[in-house]
């Protein structure tokens, strides 16, 4: 039993490591909340963006190389990274003036 556990533990820790870190964002009144989101560098991150507005938005980031339409009232998953430490701005293409934010990897 001990041996089995010893054999399995690296696998278990591996699967724990493989489970993606999540970071949640909300779009409200054409703004991202929080406007700056901190994530761990060197790791794949699942951004979950919840559009609480009554209008569609497009999440876009040149630095993260991502774009995704988010229908009103829905949540979108966007996988990013693994990222090098740094600041990665993103914006809502349909409301570029107000909808601005950044992922900060550290």
């Amino acid at each position, binding site marked *: 039993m001990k041996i089995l556990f010893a054999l399995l533990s690296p696998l278990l820790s591996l699967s724990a490591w493989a489970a993606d870190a999540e970071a949640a964002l909300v779009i409200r009144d054409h703004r991202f909340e929080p406007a700056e989101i901190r994530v761990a560098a060197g790791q794949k991150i699942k951004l979950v963006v919840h559009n609480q507005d009554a209008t569609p938005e497009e999440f876009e980031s040149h630095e993260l190389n991502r774009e995704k339409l988010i229908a009103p009232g829905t949540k979108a998953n966007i996988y990013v990274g693994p990222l090098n430490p740094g600041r990665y701005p993103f914006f809502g293409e*349909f409301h570029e003036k107000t909808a601005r934010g950044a992922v900060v990897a550290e």
Partner: protein
Amino acid sequence: MLGSAIIVFREALEAALIIGIIAAATRGMQARNFWLLVGISAGIAGSLIVASLTGQIAELAEGAGQELFNAGILGLAAAMLAWHNIWMARHGMQLAKDARQLGHDVTSGDREMSALAAVVALAILREGSETALFLYGLLTGGEDTLATVLGGGAIGLLAGILAGYGLYAGFVRIPTRLFFAATSGLILLLAAAMTSQAARFLVQADILPSLANPLWDTSWLLANTSLPGRFLHTLAGYEAMPSGIQVVFYSATLILVLVGMRIVRIRPPATVTQ
């Protein structure tokens, strides 16, 4: 008004440039304008349907629906462009001898034109559905009136169409001797650009690994946000910060299509009509 003009221009530009290249590449083909119109109408109708189903599409495949849908459209369009280039490699020599030869080969020409009309429809489908959603959002958000939204949209659309027409007009001035090489070269790059974008969507949905993200960063030299960057992005798949898998897809497309063109050139078909 300016805001809606700029966004509509951005979306229209991509589709218009693709249509400009295809219109140039199919110059002299039987019923070309008919097929282009079919493609454009189907694209507009399709984009309204896709825009209205955005939420439902996104929820498919455990939230990866939008990425799979986009990657599928891009992959299909790239396959048609690849097929066009290989087909042209087969018939190109004949065409150089007599530009009207192709017009007589109606069935073959129709099949070819319908494939390219599908590329036109798919290009409009992608950009048009985004545009429709954006304009719908402006209207329902109550920030702008119908007149300013439609006015801005019309200005943006017109500017995009002019850019596409400019590309077409420039292309048809190329001498016949170089014309086929120029158009098939551009279509090859367009196909590679599309598979690279498809790969990016599959990474975004965590279906493909990124391999390296980014593999390089040339945004200091030419940013994707600049107008030249945008042109090169649409026409040749330029990315200032590509992921490794995008470069793999891009190169693989170039190599496979070139090899395909080479093979049909070495072994010309026996069934070519004279």
